[in-house]
C-alpha cells in the first residue's frame, strides 16, 4: 500500500511543480515578452503582409484572446510540445522541427559522455573511498576540485588550444566536415569532430560522480554492519563488493538520473565553444537573435527533462531502497 501512496505523492509533486514552472514560462513569454511576436515574425520572413493577414496569423497563434484564455491554451500547447513557429531563426519552420533535428546530435553527445563519466567517476570513487587518502584518492580529489572550479568553456578552450591548435589531432569545431563524407568515412569524420566536446563533457561531469560515490562509500564503510562483516572475518574484497558498494550506489543512482535531466542545459556552453550544432547551440542562437519562440521551447523542454529525471530518480530510489516507501 505504501508504494502506491508514495508514487501518487511523487506524481502529484511532479504535476504541481510542472504547473508552477509553466505558469512562470507563461508569465515570461506571454505577458512580459518584449516586442510583438507576430510583427517580428512577419519582418523576419521577408514577405509583405496586409493587416488582415497579420490579424489572421495572430488569431492562429491564439494571441487575440484575453490572457486567462491564453493561459489555458498555452498549457495545452506546452504539454503537447506545440511550440508554434520560429519567429526569427527560421520563419518557415516550426520550432519543434528545429528542435528535434538538433536534439539527435546533442543526445549522442550527452548519453555517451555521461555514461563514460559515470563509469569513470564511480569506479574511481569506489577505489578512492576504499583507499582513503591514498595516492589515487588525493589525485582524484584534487582534480575533481579543479574541474569543479573550471568553467566548461575554459576546459573546452584548453583542449582546443592543445589538441586542435597545437597538435592538430582533432578539428576545432562543428559536427562534420564542411563537405560531408559518405559511408564509413562519414562516421570517422563525425567521431573525430565529436571527440573534443565529448572529452570536455565527460571531464566536466566526472568529478561530481567521483565525489558522491566516494563520500557515500565512506558513509557506508562507517556503518556497523560493515564492522560486523569484518569481525566475522569476511575478506576485505567481499566486504567491499557485497556489503559496501551496493548500498553506497544508491545516492549515485539518483545523481545519474538527475544529471541526465540537467545536462540538457549543461551542454549549452560546451556546444557553443565547439560550434556543435545541438540544442545547446540552438539556445544560444535563439538568445543572440532574440527568437523567443525557440528560446521558450528550449527552456520548457529542459525543465520537463529535469522534472522527469527527478521523478525517475525518486522511483528508482523507492524501488531500490524499501525504507523510502515506508517512510
Amino acid at each position, binding site marked *: 500500500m505504501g508504494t502506491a501512496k508514495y508514487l501518487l505523492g511523487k506524481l502529484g*509533486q511532479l504535476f*504541481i*511543480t510542472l504547473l*508552477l*514552472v509553466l505558469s*512562470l514560462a507563461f508569465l*515570461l*513569454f506571454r505577458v*512580459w*515578452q*518584449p516586442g510583438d511576436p507576430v510583427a517580428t515574425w512577419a519582418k523576419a520572413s521577408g514577405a509583405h503582409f496586409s493587416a488582415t493577414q497579420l490579424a489572421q496569423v495572430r488569431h492562429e497563434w491564439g494571441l487575440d484572446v484575453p490572457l486567462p484564455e491564453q493561459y489555458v491554451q498555452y498549457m495545452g500547447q506546452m504539454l503537447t510540445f506545440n511550440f508554434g513557429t520560429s519567429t526569427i531563426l527560421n520563419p518557415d519552420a516550426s520550432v519543434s522541427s528545429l528542435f528535434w533535428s538538433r536534439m539527435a546530435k546533442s543526445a549522442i553527445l550527452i548519453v555517451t559522455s555521461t555514461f563514460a563519466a559515470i563509469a569513470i567517476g564511480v569506479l574511481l570513487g569506489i577505489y578512492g573511498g576504499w583507499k582513503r587518502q591514498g595516492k589515487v584518492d588525493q589525485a582524484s580529489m584534487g582534480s575533481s*576540485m*579543479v574541474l*569543479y*572550479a*573550471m*568553467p*566548461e*568553456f*575554459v576546459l573546452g*578552450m*584548453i583542449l*582546443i*588550444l592543445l589538441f586542435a*591548435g*597545437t597538435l592538430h589531432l582533432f578539428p*576545432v569545431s562543428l559536427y562534420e566536415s564542411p563537405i560531408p563524407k559518405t559511408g564509413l568515412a562519414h562516421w570517422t569524420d563525425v567521431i573525430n569532430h565529436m571527440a573534443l566536446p565529448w572529452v570536455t563533457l565527460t571531464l566536466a561531469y566526472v568529478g561530481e560522480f567521483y565525489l558522491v560515490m566516494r563520500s557515500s562509500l*565512506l558513509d557506508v564503510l*562507517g556503518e556497523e554492519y560493515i564492522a560486523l562483516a569484518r569481525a566475522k572475518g569476511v575478506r576485505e574484497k567481499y566486504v567491499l563488493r557485497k556489503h559496501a558498494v551496493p548500498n553506497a550506489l544508491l545516492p549515485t543512482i539518483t545523481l545519474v538520473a538527475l544529471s541526465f*535531466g*540537467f545536462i*540538457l*542545459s*549543461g551542454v*549549452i*556552453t560546451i556546444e*557553443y*565553444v565547439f560550434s556543435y550544432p545541438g540544442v545547446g547551440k540552438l*539556445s*544560444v542562437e535563439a*538568445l*543572440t537573435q*532574440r527568437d*523567443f519562440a525557440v*528560446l*521558450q521551447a*528550449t*527552456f520548457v523542454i*529542459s*525543465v520537463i*527533462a*529535469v*522534472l522527469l529525471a*527527478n521523478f525517475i530518480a525518486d522511483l528508482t530510489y523507492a524501488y531500490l531502497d524499501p525504507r523510502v516507501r515506508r517512510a
Partner: protein
Amino acid sequence: MKTEPAIAATEVPAPVLPPEKRTPRQLRWARRRRTAARFWQQFRQSKMGMIGLAILLFYVGVAIFSVFANKGALDPTITTNGPRLAGPSLHYPLGTQIDGISVLSLTIEGARISLFVGLAAAIISMLLGTIIGMWAGYKSSVHDAILMRITDVFLVLPWLALAIVLAAMFGQNFWIIIIIIGLTSWAGTARLVRAQVLSVKERTYIERSRALGASDAHVVIKHITPNLMPIIFANTILTIAIAILSESQLSFLGLGDPKSQSWGTLIEQAFNHGALTLHAWWWLMAPSLSIVLVVLGFTMVGFAMDEIVNPRIRER
C-alpha cells in the same frame, strides 16, 4: 578564566571581589571575540582552508588595487597605442589583446567586477534563502508546504536555461545579472536553513525562552539566527564560488554588461575575436586562470569552514 557574575544573588553579602565593570554589551563582544579566536584556531589547522584564504586575499588585494590605481586603464583613447595581439613581454607581462590593450590591466579590472558580482549575488541568495528557509522551518505546516514547493521549483529549474531567458528579456545590465544569479541560486540555502531551524527550534532553551514569554520575533532573532550564523556563513562562501562561475558563463554567452567587463566578458571577447585560431593563448590565460583560482579559493575556504561548523560533516 574569569567567573561570570551571578545574576540572581540576593542573599549573598556584597562580594569582596572587585565589581564587574563590564557592561552586557562588552561581555557579549568578549564572548564573540573568544568564539572568533577559537574558530580561527581550528581554521588554521586546515591546510586547504589556508591555501584558499591566501588565494582570496591576493585577489581581493588586486580588486582593491584596481579601484585606486587603474583609473582610465580601460579608456581606449589612452591605452590602444600598444602593439596589437602581442605575446607576453617585459612591457606587457600578460600580452595585449586585439586593440592593443594590456591583458594584465584588463584582468585587474575584471577582478573587481567578477568579485563584486559574485559577492552581491551571493548576498541576495543568502538573504532569500535564509528568510525563506527560516520562515518555512519556523512556521506551521501550511507555510512550510507552500514555501517548500516553491523552493523545489527553483531547485530543479535548470538555472542556465532560466538565466538565459531572463537576461534576454530584461537586458544586459550589471545589476540585472546580479539579481538573476541571486534569484536562481537561493534554493539550496533555503533547504539547508530550514533543516537547521527544524532541529534548533526543538531545543529546550527555546522552549524555556518561550515559557518566559518571548515573542516569535525574539526567539528567531535572538536565539535561532545566532545559532545558524556559522553554517549560513560557510554556505554563503560556497555560494560566492557558484555565483562567480555563473557570471562567467552568462558573460561568455554574451549576456554580460559591455560597460563593466568581468573575466567572463574578457574570455568572450577573446573567443569571438578568434583568439583560438590566432593562437593568442595569453589573451585567454589570465582571465581563465583567475576564474579557476578564485572559485577554487572560495570553495576551499568554504569546505574548510563547513568542516568546522557543520556538525554532520564534523562527525566523520
